[in-house]
């Protein structure tokens, strides 16, 4: 290799060599062990220099912040570019570790637990606690809601409310900027106005939402993220290709890991008071609890709660998660609403039906439970029976949310509790029956 070729490699690594020349140069060095070794050494040197100098810049900023008289004058744009890689690296590590990376805020109480039902765990310095009390102030960490019908409401100091529901896991921090990582599950938020240069950031494995003040729901699913905006505007970035979209009020968008799919927003349909899902000819979406074969939906075991000893309580159930349809479907509960199922069990055991709800304005609306005694079930000769439960039979799980009437059902869950009765459902229906 001569010096000119070495210089050209350096130029290429500086991004200063035209693409055609890059391609020609790379074609020349392919198979040339000495040239490939030089390219590797130089690429590492460039990378180390970038890393090292950005870190020095961050250190200098920290020093400048501590000593105002030594403050440097750097344009906001260049400051952003200087911070971009450390921020990106931090975000990546957050997703990798989901342990905690916003070290500076570890000692500060960030959130208060204002309401909860079901089993909730919180990590404090790597140790998990399940004995959280309502009103408890939490430092930056990770909170987990265990079980389909579990929920936790959390409040930041500025009044921003978060609600986690179902099997969800959220890491959170606030150090001048609210930073959240939703590793799994569903998060709804009512966000107070945030500084424009420090929006609340919510990351999932497939997307990043930037929020300056709004009401929204975010569901981190296995291969995508579903965003539903009720008020305001949320900027959604698909991590697979970096494309972004502004999702306005009353709209939703899906950021998939598959960047081949178009990223766009669609208007959320108006709430429905009557709706039916027939499992006999429609395959249930993958994120609904249960096993669908296109002819029926069979119950699957799930962790309903976890005892203080760590032992899990397993229930067998089926969920209809209308909030996770695309676009999300809103089912409105009215005072004359009835929940109906057509189902079958191998034994006439008692059933639990849960309604997980949100307010029409988008906030958390509470979870509600009804029980159907096994003796009330009247199966036909083939074992099928129809179950109808009026909304008045549903009891609140928290005194803060007394009735589901006027709320939106985000998920309806039916279970045979801890007994596997091979519960099978062929139809779910919400019906408003004025005669009731």
């Amino acid at each position: 290799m001569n010096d000119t070729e070495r210089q050209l490699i350096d130029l290429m690594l500086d991004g200063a060599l035209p693409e055609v020349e890059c391609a020609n140069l790379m074609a020349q060095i392919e198979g040339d062990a000495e040239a490939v070794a030089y390219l590797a050494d130089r690429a590492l040197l460039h990378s180390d220099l970038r890393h090292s100098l950005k870190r020095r810049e961050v250190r200098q900023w920290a020093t400048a912040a501590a000593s105002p008289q030594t403050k440097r004058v750097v344009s906001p744009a260049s400051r952003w570019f200087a911070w971009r890689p450390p921020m990106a690296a931090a975000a990546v590590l957050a997703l990798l570790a989901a342990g905690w990376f916003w070290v500076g805020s570890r000692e500060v109480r960030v959130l208060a637990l204002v309401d909860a039902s079901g089993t909730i765990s919180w990590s404090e310095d790597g140790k998990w606690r399940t004995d959280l009390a309502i009103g408890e102030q939490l430092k930056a960490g990770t909170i987990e809601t265990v079980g389909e019908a579990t929920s936790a409401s959390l409040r930041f100091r500025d009044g921003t409310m978060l609600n986690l529901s179902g099997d969800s896991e959220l890491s959170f921090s606030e150090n001048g900027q609210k930073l959240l990582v939703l590793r799994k599950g569903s998060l709804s938020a009512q966000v107070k106005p945030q500084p424009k240069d420090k929006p609340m950031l919510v990351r999932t494995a497939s997307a990043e939402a930037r929020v300056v003040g709004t009401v929204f729901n975010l569901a981190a699913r296995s291969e995508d993220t579903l965003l539903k905006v009720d008020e305001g505007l949320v900027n959604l970035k698909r991590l697979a290709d970096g494309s972004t979209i502004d999702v306005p009020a009353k709209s939703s968008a899906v950021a998939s890991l598959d960047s081949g799919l178009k990223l766009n927003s669609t208007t959320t349909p108006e709430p429905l008071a009557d709706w039916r899902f027939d499992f006999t000819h429609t395959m249930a979406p993958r994120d609904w609890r249960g096993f669908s074969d296109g002819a029926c939906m069979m119950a699957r075991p799930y962790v309903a709660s976890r005892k203080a000893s760590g032992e899990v309580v397993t229930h067998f159930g089926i969920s209809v998660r209308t909030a996770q349809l695309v676009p999300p479907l809103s089912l409105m509960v009215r005072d004359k609403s009835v929940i109906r199922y057509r189902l079958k069990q191998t034994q006439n055991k008692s059933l639990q039906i849960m309604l997980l709800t949100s307010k029409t304005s988008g906030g958390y609306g509470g979870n509600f439970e009804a029980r159907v005694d096994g003796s009330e079930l009247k199966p036909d000769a083939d074992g099928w029976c129809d179950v109808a439960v009026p909304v008045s039979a549903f009891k609140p799980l928290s005194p803060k949310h007394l009735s589901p009437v006027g709320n939106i059902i985000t998920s309806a869950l039916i279970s045979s509790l801890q007994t596997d009765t091979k519960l099978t459902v062929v139809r779910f229906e919400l019906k408003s029956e004025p005669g009731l």
Partner: protein
Amino acid sequence: MNHESEIETRERLTRLWREAEPSVQAYVFAAVRSVQDAEDVVQQVALTVARRFDEYDGARPFVAWALWLAKSRVIDHYRRQEREKLVFSEALLEQLAEALVQRQPQRSARQEALERCIEKLPAKSRQLLELRYEEDASMERVAEAVQSTAASVRVLLFRIRNLLAECVQSQLSKEVL
């Protein structure tokens, strides 16, 4: 997976990624021209590594596996850019990955040596590096800031990097002695 083993897995993944990340960055930044695109590709690699960590065979070097995943992400990036011809052929991407894997054992020592070598540079050389890397400035912008020409800056940066490479090598040789 229970909480403790999940935490252990995450900690292991984080540790392995921290060690491999500079090599992955070097690889992606070499193959992808735009800094912003390269950062996005590195992020995609990290996400892929996290998602597929259960497939990682602990008997193989982690960096080799991460670079193997990075190769796919770089090729995806080329495809999205609708390149008719890859800037780096698949063969060259493999050769570069292999060379980076060979250099992995010395990574942290090299980084520490580089920190010391940067301190030894004259102020003007450090200023050029700061403009180039802290601010991701183009040659033209660096030249404007130091009231020089882009051609001259290119040559100066090439020489500074050569000096740094020699300095790092010399520091590592002393450590061996």
